[in-house]
């Protein structure tokens, strides 16, 4: 067994016990990247020297008898939009290909404080604006289960690299599904936390009302470990929540679904779904039931309501993204990829009144949704995606006619929950679907991440997906 087959939790425990060094983990990971990444294009940049240097610091600290953090010695690579002072951060773009920020993101700083080692920047949709995993500047990222198929996006490299064991976990970001989709399509675990749960300081923005920072990992416990490191109020991001952070790791280590009511989200979430995706969803429901959960019906998928929520989400995202990109669209328009530019431009045209109306309505809609849905169940369960995993070729639509429909179809099941602020954990389904992973998302009320992890950990035992890995 290679060291890269260890989970993040197992790897850090091995470092703490002195069974392996952090440098061992780094060298194994670098060898894995050399062997596998040419097939997948998950890395924009491998920072081997940084990783070796930070690993040596951890190994010296251990040798000196110092206390090591909960992520001690584990190499992690991240979506290439997390700033490190003085380090390259491309944001998946040509425009920022040489960008060296002067600040370090709070998320990366907290991971480092807890002992994680920085391994490099991962492929992503240009400026995090795309759900497929295509990138016109760095090339498409490929799915380790079938390199001809998409990874999902926008955190494409985070999904691909983690599933392919080139990193023990990765940060992504999620504005409409960008953590959950690549986690789902690549067969791993991905958490979009509650809006504002994680600081966004030093993280490239796309739409500040909808952006979230979160981890992609191979197991629920690994995910809890990473979120525990990065969650919590940050004075550098005054929008970050002051709500106390629960014990995510303890929850993931106490798996339980007993008596938990899982509400099935139908309607909108089943609309035009491939039969195989719903079969996979039903297998997941059976696994939850075996773990002790009670399956109930909900009207969370009311078609008209969810479509309207998506429309408000689009009204919110458009002007926010257009505002961030206005300067570059003015000064270096041709440096954008065609799809990124095409998706940004409409945002200039929405009226200010409509944009603000979408935001003013949000508290009311969120409150009504929570009261209506979570009075009947503890968590919602919906597919993460409800299509057969498309090929890279068939979704390489750039800004061609109909490209919006391709994008909307892939992100159909994830988009509504960003406007609703709710946490959602993407989890692999028990069986592969025609050789590819299926995925469901478990969605809870605001700040219910610990309870989600506890239920998901019980599901994970039943579902057994941690036993499989792509053959590369």
């Amino acid at each position: 067994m290679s060291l890269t087959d260890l989970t993040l939790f197992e790897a850090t425990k091995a470092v703490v016990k002195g069974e392996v060094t952090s440098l061992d983990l780094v060298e194994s990971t670098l060898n894995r990247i050399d062997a596998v990444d040419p097939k997948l294009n998950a890395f924009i940049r491998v920072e081997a020297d940084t990783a070796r240097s930070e690993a040596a610091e951890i190994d010296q600290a251990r040798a000196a008898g110092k206390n090591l953090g909960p992520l001690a010695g584990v190499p992690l690579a991240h979506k290439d939009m997390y700033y490190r002072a003085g380090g390259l951060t491309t944001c998946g773009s040509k425009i920022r290909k040489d960008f060296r920020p002067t600040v370090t993101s709070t998320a990366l700083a907290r991971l480092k404080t807890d002992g994680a080692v920085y391994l490099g920047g991962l492929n992503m949709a240009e400026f995090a604006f795309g759900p497929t995993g295509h990138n016109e500047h760095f090339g498409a990222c490929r799915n380790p289960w079938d390199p001809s198929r998409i990874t999902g996006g926008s955190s494409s490299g985070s999904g691909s690299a983690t599933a392919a064991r080139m990193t023990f976990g990765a940060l992504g970001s999620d504005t409409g599904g960008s953590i959950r989709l690549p986690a789902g399509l690549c067969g791993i675990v991905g958490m979009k936390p509650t809006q504002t749960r994680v600081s966004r300081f030093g993280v490239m923005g796309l739409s500040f009302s909808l952006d979230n920072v979160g981890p992609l990992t191979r197991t629920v416990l690994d995910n809890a470990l990473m979120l525990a490191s990065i969650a919590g109020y940050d004075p550098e991001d005054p929008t970050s929540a002051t709500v106390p952070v629960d014990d995510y790791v303890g929850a993931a280590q106490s798996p339980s679904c007993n008596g938990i009511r899982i509400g099935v989200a139908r309607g909108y979430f089943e609309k035009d779904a491939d039969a195989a995706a719903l079969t996979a969803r039903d297998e997941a429901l059976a696994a939850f039931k075996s773990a002790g959960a009670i399956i109930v019906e909900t009207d969370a998928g009311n078609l008209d309501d969810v479509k309207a929520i998506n429309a408000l989400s689009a009204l919110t995202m458009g002007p926010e993204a257009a505002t961030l990109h206005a300067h570059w669209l003015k000064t270096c328009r041709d440096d954008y990829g065609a799809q990124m530019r095409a998706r940004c431009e409409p945002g200039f045209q929405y009226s200010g009144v409509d944009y603000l109306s979408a935001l003013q309505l949000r508290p009311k809609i969120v409150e009504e949704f929570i009261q209506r849905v979570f009075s009947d169940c503890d968590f919602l369960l919906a597919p993460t995606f409800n299509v057969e995993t498309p090929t890279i070729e068939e979704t390489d639509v750039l800004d061609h006619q109909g490209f919006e429909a391709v994008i909307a179809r892939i992100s159909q099941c994830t988009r509504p929950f960003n406007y609703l602020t709710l946490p959602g954990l993407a989890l692999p389904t028990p069986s592969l679907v025609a050789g590819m992973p299926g995925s469901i998302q478990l969605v809870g009320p605001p700040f219910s991440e610990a309870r989600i992890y506890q239920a998901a950990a019980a599901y994970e035992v039943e579902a057994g997906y941690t036993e499989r890995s792509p053959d590369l």
Partner: protein
Amino acid sequence: MSQSSEEPFPGYVYSSEAAKRADNIQSAGRKAIFKFAEGSLFDTEPALVDKIMAKNVEAHK
């Protein structure tokens, strides 16, 4: 100088396709606003969503 809807800032012209996409999204958005607003948007503001989220921490323990 006034700007047309095809010129979000001086010297920048975008495609008619972008204008069409914007019209479609804005039209759907306006229907959604009408559906949910039920009258006036007085007595609310975007930041209230934080209060709603925090309130549910206790309610769903």
